[in-house]
């Protein structure tokens, strides 16, 4: 690099800063400058594409990590104490020694951080090293470079199924229309393909060996023509790199959740601080009185350096601080680190559970939030999404109604049952490589009557229209079975998940960060050209809307006939896919889709190419979507609309006197109601023929809306609403969403566990209610209160005036409509709603928006002060997942958004059962007991020192060597509680699953409460009194020296603390035995070795001397026994006299498996008789959710009856 004056460098740096900060970015192609020195490069100001997600650098690791760690208040406190050690008047023994614990803890945390960072570094490096093709003007071709070497202004070639290395501007695609499709699952979690167009106005000539850059690419970002859709793919100019990519910029830090246990823990830490201060004040006062009581200065009182003594008050003031240093262990310095370690261990076991592993998707549970495992054991309310969570979200076409006639597709039903066993074996779409997605599932058995109807007519009638609408009115992308979408990311993502898991304290953020550049490329969806012949064929392509400089006119409509069977559909929603497959089954095959046209093959074999004039995409306000096409034969403008029934029904044209239309509408409505009762998802299909003039004027408006700068969304929506009027109803479809495996069983179990399950769904009430029955959320005998009200009418549910008293009816279920819910959420009704909901066994909210979902969760969580869990799989559940105490995402069909927002990601709803009942219970009970034990342990140990103060003039002296005191907490007694917190098992997994009632023990206050905390603190005081005063009375008046006296005390304390834990341990494994014995051995080895090696040590040879004295053993034995006797007795009596469920379950656990199962059955039936009068239903096997759904759908009258006969509230 040639010499540059420093001034020039600074100027250059400033210019770079300006260039980066500008809204408008001027980019110049790198090609002309290739090979020049770095400082001559026009784009040198921009950062390179290398990704760095690491927090630290090697050089500055220590200061940066320390800075990070000192953000924690606890650490600051401990460092403050360590500094206090160096204040001379405090007279600490060895200030250096006092630094050891804090150093060890800081070092442990630093090692953990360094390790995490190193893993991040490795994955970054891997990512940065991925190859990509960048055009080089020297080589005259695309050369392989690494991602990190891609610079702003480079031309990049991305091939089919590649991962996109940076934010790119799409200049050219091999597709004649300049279109490519990308998948952005790594960015936003959406798995559907998105279309991107090449930049209009850019023209590139591609020849065999060279690229002529016709436009000297000065590309401005932020101008309208370059809005988001154009940013990605194929052959591009790189315009944002590495850290500046959207994904990186959008990446916020992880959110920090605090578990309820941790909040309570912090309160107890404050109690400990108060206790410590009390003890220090007592010490300080004692010292004052001790000094005051002396008639004159004794020999043993050491004066200051200058020979005079401090006044008693000053000296006792100093002693206060000495006491704090002496007794500081009372505030458990290592507790926070231990809790983190325990949680890592707990998460290790959760993620390694085979029962939570899904074979089909090869996915284990992912724990994203690492500090709320114990909250899993305290859940009281579960808010569940329906579609994709309770159900599979794999849509199967079941019935349809066309022009008021119903086609029930009965054969469909029979075959489906036969196929059932096979279907469950089918791999899920996402990870399948050999099986075409959904092939078996979407095989529609045709309704013969309907088939005859279609075949019978040649003219385009309503039937044809119906199926055309099914085929056209969607956003399904057609791809070839041969050029199928490769889940490139699947492996990589899995790898990252793994990294993420095995890197437990790492956060979600790294996944997101990395996902940044992982936008996956998708092959172009044309049959004419393959992606690879781009450079070799040497074609120049006319870009849509651009000036033509084309050498090659893309062939149109000359696609070779592709066997329809090989087509592969990729849809945004499973409903769409199901409908397209249905259309295909009836002969209306969607052949291809480009932005401008849709090709459909008719049953006759003819192919029609519809020109697509516009697509009015789906939004949740309109609840419908439309496609505006020009019929190739009649040249008519036709609008096909499909949407939710109520969204369509209100827009139907009101024909004057045309009775037939009305009849069709009412018949269809009837069918729709019927479908809904069966639990089918309904959609209405409608069409509208526009005259040209009408279209022209609308199109102008539409263009305005699209071009608008402000309020664009609203204008676009308004324009859509404008044209979607006076529709002509074609028919309706019923699509089934099957229940997931063992959902009813899971719901039942969760309920028995005392968890209220709410279902919040966007579906119709009828559909929701039926799913509710199917998954046993609602029972036949329930009193179902259906709250719905007419639009805009004031609605005040007066349940309190209901003749039946809500409190006396055991099983009330509430079904609420979205609109009603809005009113119930108003401030004046809120409390009453919550009050009512609390009495309900289950609540179903239908037609709720994502925002409402989160509002409901928040309301319940805040008003009832309960632990809530929200589970969902789609983007519409993200709000709810974030609002709840625990968010669980189901990695299913609807992409990754829910998973990314969640704390735990599971693959099936049924996993929730084991996650909560077993792991939740264990995690909570383990951690709660561990924390209590930790407080106890420190208090018991420190109190010994406190009692000693009464015998050493409150001079803050210790009878145990300082090093040994530190080792005591750091080495001898630290591992057992951590192991206890990771591995203890109060009840076996089988029992927890068999007896869901056991889960109730963790709800509410659970094992860690004010009461248990203080009991254990009192126990600590008692034990320390025993451990101190038994040796005191034994050695009183003798010639024992200070450390010889401290040794039995320390030993007793160790034995008491470890045996206390042994009493608490519920299940002993070899690991427990090893660690407990190991701790004792370590104590003796370290103390003995220490006594030999250290000549300076005042307690030289002390333990050795004690160990040859039989009195030592006798004192230790009796003190330990007396200290532990009360707790031991308490446990024995508790286990013998009381019969808490946990104790009973533990008794059962010891039985033989067969007898145990017998017992469980008896227990459950006994409890069932008392609690659940419908327990007899539970004998019905629901292994086949399909059958259960069917059987329940017949009894759907039951629902009507019950809701009719019972009081229907609302609309008063």
């Amino acid at each position: 690099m040639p010499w540059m004056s420093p001034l020039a460098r600074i100027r250059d740096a400033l210019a770079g800063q300006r260039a980066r900060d500008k809204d408008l970015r001027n980019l110049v192609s790198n090609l002309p400058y290739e090979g020049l020195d770095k400082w001559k490069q026009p784009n040198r100001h921009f950062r390179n594409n290398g990704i760095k997600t690491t927090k630290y650098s090697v050089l500055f690791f220590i200061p940066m990590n320390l800075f990070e760690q000192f953000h924690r208040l606890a650490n600051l406190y401990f460092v403050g104490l360590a500094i206090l050690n160096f204040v001379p008047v405090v007279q600490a023994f060895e200030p250096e020694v006092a630094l050891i614990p804090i150093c060890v803890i800081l070092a442990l945390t630093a090692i953990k951080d360094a390790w995490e960072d190193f893993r991040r570094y490795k994955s970054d490096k891997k990512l940065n090293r991925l190859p990509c093709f960048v055009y080089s003007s020297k080589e005259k071709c695309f050369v392989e470079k690494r991602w990190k070497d891609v610079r702003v202004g480079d031309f990049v070639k991305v091939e089919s199924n590649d991962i996109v290395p940076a934010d790119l501007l799409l200049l050219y695609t091999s597709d004649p229309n300049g279109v490519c499709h990308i998948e952005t699952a790594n960015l936003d979690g959406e798995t559907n393909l998105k279309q991107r167009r090449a930049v209009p106005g850019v023209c590139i000539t591609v020849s065999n060996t060279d690229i002529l850059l016709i436009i000297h690419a000065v590309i401005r970002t932020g101008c309208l023509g370059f809005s988001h859709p154009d940013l990605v793919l194929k052959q591009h100019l790189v315009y944002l790199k590495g850290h500046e990519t959207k994904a990186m910029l959008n990446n916020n830090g992880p959110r920090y959740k605090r578990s309820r246990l941790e909040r309570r823990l912090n309160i107890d830490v404050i109690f400990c601080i108060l206790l410590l201060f009390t003890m220090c004040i007592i010490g300080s006062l004692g010292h004052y009185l001790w000094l005051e009581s002396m008639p004159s200065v004794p020999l043993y009182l050491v004066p200051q350096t200058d020979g005079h003594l401090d006044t008693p008050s000053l000296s006792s003031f100093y002693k206060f601080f000495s006491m704090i240093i002496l007794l500081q262990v009372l505030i458990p310095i290592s507790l926070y680190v231990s809790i983190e370690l325990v949680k890592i261990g707990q998460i290790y076991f959760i993620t390694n559970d085979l029962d939570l592993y899904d074979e089909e998707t090869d996915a284990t549970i992912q724990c994203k939030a690492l500090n709320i495992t114990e909250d899993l054991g305290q859940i009281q309310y579960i808010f569940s999404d329906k579609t994709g969570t309770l159900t599979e979200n794999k849509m199967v076409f079941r019935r349809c109604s066309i022009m008021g006639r119903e086609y029930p597709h009965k054969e469909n039903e029979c075959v489906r049952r036969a196929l059932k066993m096979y279907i469950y074996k089918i791999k899920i779409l996402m990870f399948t490589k050999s099986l075409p997605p959904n092939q078996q599932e979407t095989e529609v058995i045709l309704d013969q009557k309907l088939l005859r109807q279609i075949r019978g007519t040649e003219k385009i009638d309503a039937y044809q229209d119906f199926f055309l609408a099914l085929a056209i009115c969607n956003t399904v992308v057609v791809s070839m079975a041969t050029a199928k979408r490769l889940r490139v990311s699947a492996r990589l993502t899995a790898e990252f998940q793994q990294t993420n898991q095995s890197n437990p304290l790492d956060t979600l953020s790294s996944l997101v960060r990395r996902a940044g550049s992982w936008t996956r490329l998708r092959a172009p969806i044309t049959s004419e050209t393959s992606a690879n012949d781009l450079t070799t064929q040497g074609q120049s392509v006319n870009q849509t809307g651009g000036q033509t400089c084309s050498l090659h006119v893309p062939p149109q409509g000359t696609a070779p006939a592709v066997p329809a069977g090989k087509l592969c559909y990729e849809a945004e929603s499973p409903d769409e896919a199901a409908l397209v497959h249905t259309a295909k089954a009836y002969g209306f095959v969607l052949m291809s889709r480009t932005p401008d046209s849709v090709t459909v093959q008719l049953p006759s074999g003819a192919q029609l190419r519809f020109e697509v004039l516009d697509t009015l995409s789906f939004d949740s306000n309109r609840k419908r979507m439309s496609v505006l096409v020009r019929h190739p034969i009649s040249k008519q403008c036709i609008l096909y609309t499909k949407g939710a029934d109520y969204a369509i029904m209100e827009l139907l044209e009101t024909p004057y006197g045309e009775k037939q239309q009305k009849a069709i509408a009412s018949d269809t409505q009837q069918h729709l109601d019927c479908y809904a009762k069966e639990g089918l998802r309904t959609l209405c299909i409608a069409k509208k023929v526009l005259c040209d003039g009408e279209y022209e004027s609308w199109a102008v408006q539409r263009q305005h809306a699209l071009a608008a700068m402000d309020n664009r969304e609203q204008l676009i929506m308004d324009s859509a609403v404008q044209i979607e009027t006076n529709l002509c109803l074609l028919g309706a479809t019923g699509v089934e969403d099957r229940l997931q495996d063992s959902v009813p069983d899971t719901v039942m179990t969760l309920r028995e566990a005392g968890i209220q399950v709410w279902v919040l769904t966007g579906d119709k009430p009828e559909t929701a209610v039926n799913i509710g029955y199917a998954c046993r959320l609602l029972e036949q005998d329930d009193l179902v209160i259906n709250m719905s009200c007419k639009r805009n009418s004031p609605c005040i549910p007066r349940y309190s005036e209901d003749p039946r008293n809500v409190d006396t009816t055991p099983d009330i279920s509430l079904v609420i409509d979205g609109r009603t819910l809005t009113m119930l959420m108003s401030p004046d009704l809120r409390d009453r709603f919550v009050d009512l909901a609390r009495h309900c066994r289950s609540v179903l909210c239908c037609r709720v928006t994502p925002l409402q979902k989160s509002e409901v969760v928040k309301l319940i969580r805040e008003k009832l002060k309960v632990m809530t869990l929200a589970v969902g799989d789609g983007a519409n559940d993200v709000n709810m997942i974030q609002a709840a105490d625990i968010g669980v995402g189901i990695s299913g069909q609807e992409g990754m958004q829910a998973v990314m927002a969640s704390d735990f990601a599971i693959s099936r709803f049924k996993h929730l059962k084991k996650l909560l009942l077993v792991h939740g219970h264990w995690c909570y009970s383990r951690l709660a007991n561990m924390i209590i034990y930790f407080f106890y342990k420190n208090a018991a140990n420190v109190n010994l020192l406190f009692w000693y103060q009464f015998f050493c003039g409150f001079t803050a002296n210790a009878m145990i060597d300082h090093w040994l005191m530190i080792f005591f907490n750091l080495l001898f007694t630290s591992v057992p509680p951590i192991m206890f917190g990771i591995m203890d098992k109060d009840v076996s997994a089988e029992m927890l699953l068999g007896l869901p009632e056991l889960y109730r023990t963790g709800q509410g206050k659970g094992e860690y409460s004010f009461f248990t905390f203080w009991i254990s603190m009192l126990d600590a005081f008692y034990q320390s009194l025993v451990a101190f005063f038994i040796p005191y009375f034994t050695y009183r008046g003798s010639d024992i020296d200070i450390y010889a006296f401290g040794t039995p005390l320390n030993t007793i304390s160790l034995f008491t603390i470890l045996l206390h834990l042994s009493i608490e341990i519920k299940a002993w494994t070899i690991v427990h035995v090893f660690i407990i014995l190991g701790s004792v051995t370590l104590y003796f080895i370290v103390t003995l070795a220490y006594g030999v090696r250290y000549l300076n040590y005042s307690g030289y040879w002390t333990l050795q001397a004690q160990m040859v004295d039989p009195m030592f053993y006798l004192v230790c034995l009796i003190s330990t026994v007396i200290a532990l006797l009360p707790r031991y007795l308490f446990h024995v009596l508790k286990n013998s006299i009381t019969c808490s469920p946990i104790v009973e379950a533990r008794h059962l656990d010891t039985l033989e498996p067969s007898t145990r199962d017998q017992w469980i059955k008896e227990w459950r039936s006994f409890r069932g008789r008392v609690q659940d009068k419908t327990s007899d239903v539970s004998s019905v096997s629901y292994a086949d959710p399909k059958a259960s759904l069917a059987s329940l759908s017949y009894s759907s009258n039951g629902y009507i009856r019950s809701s009719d006969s019972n009081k229907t509230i609302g609309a008063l």
Partner: protein
Amino acid sequence: MQKKENQEVENRPDNTAFTQQRLPAWQPILSAGIVIPLFVLVGLAFIGIGVALFVTSRNLHVLEMDYTGVEKTSPCFSCSDPIKQKNCKCSLSFELDKLFEGPVFFYYGLTNYFQNQRAYGVSKDYNQLSGDLDYFTFFFSIVPDSTCKPYRYDVNNKPIVPCGSLANSMFNDTFNLYQMKNGVKEEVPLDGKGISWWTDYNIKYRNPSVNPLRNAFNGTVKPLYWSKPAYELDPTDTANNGFINQDFLVWMRRSALPNFRKLYRRITDGLPAGNYSLEISYNYPVIAFDGKKKVAFSNVSWMGGKNEFLGIAYLVIGSLCLVMSVVMLIIYHWRNSSPDAN
């Protein structure tokens, strides 16, 4: 294809007993049925130990006498203010009605004396005491160790050896025991060897290897309260001087509690019944802190000196365990019969 299969189950957790938390576990349930035998066993064992301890302790004899001289009737009353009375001597007479079997340990005791207080304990220089001559001399306020303050240098800035408060306050009363045999005082031989810890005498404390010892102390001064320098502590035995003087070692081992005894001498042959006279050279001041000075004669056993506390404690806890086992038995029967009754 093989590879693909492997890939597909890549994330499958290992099916081991450890990861699936299925390690064979022993799940003891503490309930009445199980603990009854345990309580019985513990109870019996404790009663056994208790009896042994109690009996042993009963067979030990201890004679303790206060010689502070606070009361006017006390023989040492005149000496109780040692500031006024230098080199005061007093004698204490006592009578033994039966034989004290040997070896008898002869202790001196102090009460209300806080050897265990913090600043006092650290006030010494280990390097000095381990015989390192570098720490004997003044060296730019680095040696002797600053923990010795204010007993580090004398007014002339000469280093004090041994420095520090602990050494400075060494107990300096001396005792001679005489048996009165037919009106004749017969001195009882006191054995001062091996009364300190073996490790203190042989390893921890060392004299500088200078012969004669006094040369090592050139340029230093004795502690303020001492009447003799360290190398002249025992005029009778030259080997018992300096930092390995037995009395010095005993003193330097700080007592754990404020009321303590320290071993003074051993009487190997025991004390036959009869009249004795203990001559005390009374030097050590204790009035300043309301302290008491005592002497004690005691014989020892495997359990050390006489102490009935531990024996009683074992007996009480042992009996308690037996009572508990009976209670447990009742509970056990009640529990076992009540479900059947239902």
